[in-house]
């Protein structure tokens, strides 16, 4: 038994202490969190805009008077649909590589590229989550806002969004936990994220067990942590409505 622990200790030293290899994990974790956080914010921003356009079209498109506003809304809605179809119909790794090798071929700021790629990707999923949230809010809420004199946007902002957000929060949180794990393909475009960090150690030490399980454990801890965080937040939000 003690022999086992001795090998374990030796492996540990080889994988993480020698040549300060722990830094690969640490820096990789930093990149992973950075990419996830900013892609998440970007996804929310894109998702919100697309969701508003799509639900506006769904609710009012057919009733609107013909004219410039209706034409514009139709076109923008069509663009949103194309975006959703393309993004959800292709693998995120391919999107990432297209960003890296084609769109931003001249830039070597690979973390920024990953943020943009994952942000655009998650925006498509977030948009549909937000849209379902907006559509789930009773039309009467909207009418109450409008009847007080709030415009379309203000009604959305003060009345519909807060309720929609609350109702989609669990789904939304889940989407970001998925995103956190999805960023593990960032290594495809020379980004040293958490996964890549572990993989570099594996290549350098010929150890598989230690680096890969460490990486897996870190993802797991992160996911459990964020899941907890969300359930606390959810409980808070629920309490504020009784």
């Amino acid at each position, binding site marked *: 038994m003690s022999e086992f622990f001795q090998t374990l200790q030796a492996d540990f030293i080889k994988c993480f202490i020698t040549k300060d290899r722990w830094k690969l994990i640490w820096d990789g974790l930093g990149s992973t969190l950075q990419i996830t956080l900013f892609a998440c914010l970007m996804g929310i921003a894109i998702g919100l805009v697309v969701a508003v356009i799509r639900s506006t079209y769904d609710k009012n498109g057919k*009733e609107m*008077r013909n004219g410039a506003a209706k034409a514009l809304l139709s076109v923008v809605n069509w663009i949103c649909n194309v975006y959703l179809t393309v993004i959800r119909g292709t693998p995120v790794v391919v999107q990432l590589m297209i960003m890296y090798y084609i769109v931003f071929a001249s830039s070597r700021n690979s973390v920024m590229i990953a943020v943009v790629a994952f942000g655009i990707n998650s925006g498509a999923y977030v948009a549909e989550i937000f849209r379902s949230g907006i559509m789930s809010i*009773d039309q*009467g*809420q909207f*009418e*109450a806002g*409008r*009847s*007080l*004199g*709030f*415009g379309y946007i*203000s009604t959305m902002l*003060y*009345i519909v969004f*807060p*309720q929609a957000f*609350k109702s989609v929060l669990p789904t939304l949180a889940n989407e970001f936990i998925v995103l956190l794990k999805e960023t593990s393909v960032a290594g495809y475009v020379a980004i040293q994220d958490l996964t890549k960090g572990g993989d570099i150690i594996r290549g350098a030490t010929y150890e598989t067990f230690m680096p890969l399980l460490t990486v897996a454990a870190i993802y797991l801890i992160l996911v459990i942590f964020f899941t907890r965080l969300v359930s606390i937040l959810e409980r808070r939000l629920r309490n*504020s*409505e*009784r």
Partner: protein
Amino acid sequence: MNDNVIIRTENLCKYYGEKIHALEMVNAEIKKGEVVVVIGPSGSGKSTFLRSLNLLETATSGKVYFEGVDITDPKVNINIHRQKMGMVFQQFNLFPHMTVLKNLTLAPMKLKGMKAEKAEELALRMLDKVGLKDRANAYPSQLSGGQKQRVAIVRALCMNPEVMLFDEPTSALDPEMVGEVLQVMKDLAKEGMTMVVVTHEMGFAKEVADRVIFMAEGAIIEEGTPDEIFSNPGDERTQGFLKSVLNV
């Protein structure tokens, strides 16, 4: 045009597709300080009429004048005019994510730029009038139906409207709560508020209305004082309707 007329509709029509004529050439006038009760069988277009007055429903054709302005004109900023037309819904439509107080202060603060303290002071004073001052910090889900509807009325009143529109405000309430809401409306009428009320409460119509409008099949069939309509209805559809609602 008469200065006293606050709302006037002109040949108002609302069609859903080809077949459903929810409103058919409705011409109506609401005068300042007047309480107008709209009655009629289900599907006769009462809600559509009421909701057309503040453009929650956009008419297929025809015009709505509010304080002399044609608000059906697309160039008009309807939001400004809606601030002066309070509306109360059958389903209350309070904002569930806000306390009663927030429900009441949101519009005055955001739309009229009222300071928080002033808006709260106003809200509390209005709440007090309907006997709900102590529920200011409650959430709508903690209130009874009757309380919710009283709050909804106060929410509209906090914008200091020129006219109040009610769409069956007591129809979603348990019978024992109807009275408290009608009482608030009666008080409001007494204070001189201009009101358009769609309701099945014939007692309220008789007692409070200055004028009763009877609608059927999307049109105004007849209108007159409660006395004229209830004691001496001219049209046989009015007679049939009154018979059916007064005898149950």
